[in-house]
């Protein structure tokens, strides 16, 4: 899932300080699960912002809502009135949600309440770790199911660097060395020959390096004939 975390409250309060009426919109999707922008977080944030405004002597109104998935227009439009009725919307979704609102209402201000970080998995309750960087060309079948692009600080393709000590990463001694993990996994699978093979330079054109990406499933796209109302091609 997409993992995000709330911006520091001071930063949010400062961002919102000039505006009277603030609509906070959360999301029930990834950010709810990673405890950043679900209904509870939205409610707590609204309370905290109200307290902060009170303490600072600012007259501000805050109201919180949550939509199913903020990255989809249909869900956002459920709270359209609330968004447009405010001076600014604070999105408590990942940046995709915030940008969806922004794109839908370009005149309206939409600010991010979260810092969107990683494609990660919950390792344990309350701990999320990055396991994918969306390079667009998955190779983990050759690396024991462990992604070295995401899990190695240097995205090494040919084994661990010389800084791996005690099977930990030199950059963060709390984090396992991705290549030590790959080595162990391949050893377990009796496929160590895989890391003895030379991996050539990676083609990064499928990643963000190749420019902004759009994935299209032609068979799923609605043809102009299938669209209704305003969505119909004129």
């Amino acid at each position, binding site marked *: 899932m997409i993992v995000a975390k709330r911006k520091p409250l001071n930063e949010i309060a400062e961002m919102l300080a000039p505006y009277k009426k603030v609509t906070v919109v959360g999301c029930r999707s990834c950010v709810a699960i990673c405890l950043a922008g679900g209904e509870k977080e939205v409610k707590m944030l609204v309370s905290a912002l109200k307290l902060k405004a009170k303490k600072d002597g600012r007259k501000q109104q805050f109201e919180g809502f949550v939509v199913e998935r903020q990255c989809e227009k249909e869900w956002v439009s459920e709270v359209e009135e609330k968004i447009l009725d405010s001076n600014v919307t604070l999105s408590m979704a990942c940046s995709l949600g915030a940008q969806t609102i922004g794109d839908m209402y370009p005149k309206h201000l939409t600010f991010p309440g979260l810092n969107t970080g990683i494609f990660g998995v919950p390792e344990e309750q309350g701990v999320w770790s990055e396991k994918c960087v969306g390079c667009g060309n998955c190779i983990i079948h050759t690396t024991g199911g462990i992604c070295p692009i995401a899990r190695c600080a240097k995205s090494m393709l040919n084994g661990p660097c010389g800084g791996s000590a005690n099977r930990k990463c030199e950059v963060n001694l709390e984090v396992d060395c991705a290549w030590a993990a790959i080595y162990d996994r391949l050893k377990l699978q009796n496929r160590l020959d895989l890391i003895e093979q030379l991996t050539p330079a990676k083609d990064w054109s499928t990643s963000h390096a190749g420019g902004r990406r759009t994935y299209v*499933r*032609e*068979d*799923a*796209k609605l*043809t102009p*004939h*299938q669209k209704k109302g305003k969505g119909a091609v004129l």
Partner: protein
Amino acid sequence: MAEKKPKIVAFCCERHGTDAAVLSARTGKQYDASVRLVQVPCTGRVDGMHILQALEDGADAVFVLGCLEKNCYYDTGSIEGRKRVGYVKQMLAEVGIEKERVEMFNAASTNAWAFPEAVGKMVEVAKKLGPIGGGERP
């Protein structure tokens, strides 16, 4: 040994598709008996899974017959049908199976020629390509 008879599955929508097939019979058209007509309410009901499963179950070719796109009884159903077929064709191509084994046709209920023509084309494809994997028919 008798000549191998091809096996063709035709998913026909209940509206123009089936009506066109019925009309062809009523106007005395004859076509290869190999075709197995399976009625679906609309070609939009056809799932790529149905087509692939039919191929797995021994069909040499599968076609889907729906309404004309601009005159579909369910408005956009035959467009959906076409897209499903397109995706299956793409998948077949990716696994190296001739994508012409799967085809979408459209007809109006008054097109008596449409169903026999589709059957003819697919029988030709099936005869040319034989069973998938070249194996004996079960």
